[in-house]
């Protein structure tokens, strides 16, 4: 677990440093050295430096529209996951919508089924889950309509699920006894928070592919004295308080609205006149 947390923090710091270096800082405006006021007043008249006089110029409307829309997709990583973990059958829908130029409201939801059986026990579980939160884009747009994002996000997750162990057996080689039993159906609610970083890239018009890595931290306890759920739908391993996960998504944007973006209030650079 420590290894996973260290890895996650390392990855996060690498990705954030990349994003940070992508931001261009505006150069500091240097003072005009060519038009200095006369220090000594010989005419007893008020001195006016005409070069420094502010001429009222009517401001142009410097705003434009950027594309917004509802992006809906599915998590493809659940397909190899279901092959590698046959007892984890999960379907996840992901969606987000742009609310400001760099801020997105994000939603995920899905259904999970957990059938498992081996020589010691059989397990049946299923449930629904949903997460809601925000994503913030750190990537500086190269052009106004660019939709690619490199983002960090925060989510709150909730799952309502049930599990049961229809049969289990405890074998004892010395006594030669096999004890069998069962655990009745139990309903459980789970709550967690998620931190994530990832990418979404427009590969075709309005079609996006992306991945993200995330750490989930369980808020409440779902274990009982006798039983621990094998899987918490949407969260992962039921025995752990925090889990690391990866998503690979394919999604489509329905561009049915636009967001107005205003030009940032930055002073126009003054041209430096070289001294003679």
């Amino acid at each position, binding site marked *: 677990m420590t290894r996973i947390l260290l890895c996650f923090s390392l990855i996060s710091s690498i*990705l954030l440093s*990349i994003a940070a270096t992508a931001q261009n800082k505006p150069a500091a405006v240097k003072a005009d050295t060519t038009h200095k006021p006369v220090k000594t007043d010989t005419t007893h008249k008020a001195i006016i430096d005409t070069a420094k006089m502010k001429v009222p110029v009517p401001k142009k409307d410097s705003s434009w529209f950027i594309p917004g829309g509802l992006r809906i997709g599915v998590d493809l990583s659940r397909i190899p996951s279901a092959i590698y973990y046959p007892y984890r059958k999960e379907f996840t829908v992901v969606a987000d919508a742009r609310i400001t130029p760099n801020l997105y409201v994000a939603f995920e939801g899905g259904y999970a089924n957990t059938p498992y059986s081996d020589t010691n026990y059989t397990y049946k579980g299923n449930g629904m889950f949903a997460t809601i939160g925000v994503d913030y884009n750190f990537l500086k747009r190269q052009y106004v309509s660019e939709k690619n994002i490199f983002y960090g996000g925060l989510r709150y997750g909730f799952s309502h699920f049930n599990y049961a162990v229809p049969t289990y057996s405890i074998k004892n080689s010395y*006594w030669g006894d096999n004890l069998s*039993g069962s655990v009745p159906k139990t309903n459980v609610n789970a709550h967690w928070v998620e931190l994530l970083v990832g*990418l979404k890239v427009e590969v075709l018009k309005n079609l996006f592919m992306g991945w993200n890595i995330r750490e989930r931290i369980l808020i409440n306890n779902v274990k009982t004295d*006798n039983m621990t759920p*094998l899987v918490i739908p949407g969260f992962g391993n039921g*025995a752990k308080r925090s889990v690391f996960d*990866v998503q690979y998504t394919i999604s489509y944007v329905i561009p049915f609205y636009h967001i107005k973006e205003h030009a940032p209030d930055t002073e126009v650079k003054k041209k430096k006149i070289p001294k003679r």
Partner: protein
Amino acid sequence: MKSIYQILLTVFIFAGIVACENETKVCDQTLRNDFHIHFQRDSAGVIRDTIMPKVTAFALGRDSIYKSQALGDLFFQLSPVADSSLFYLKVDSTLTPDTIKIRYTRQQHFISPGCGFGTYFNIDTVIATMHTIDQVIINNKSVTSSNDTHLTLFFFNQ
């Protein structure tokens, strides 16, 4: 810019590998929670650990667990289907054997996805004959792991 994408791709592949962990494939916790008995002697007020030279032990009606072995600790599996287990214990070939009856309550619980279910025992009483055993002390009533010492047997000084 190309190298950044290569780094991000590497990060994603690495993260995918780390995220893969099938917990049903391995039993990472031991299922053994044997009843652990430790041997000691009281020599004129000084308590010392002791090793008995030829220990033979078995549950009555079952196979031998130990056969003429020099031992200072015993590990007995308690019956998961009965509320008591009766063991035969002979610590030296020349000495009279003893029997130890352990009475307990049982609780089944889920150990891990890889290990399945197991039984925890809670010791109620220990009844022993006192041929070679001087004193019986229950150290830990909860038998959830073999690492704990659950019972100490004090033997008479020969």
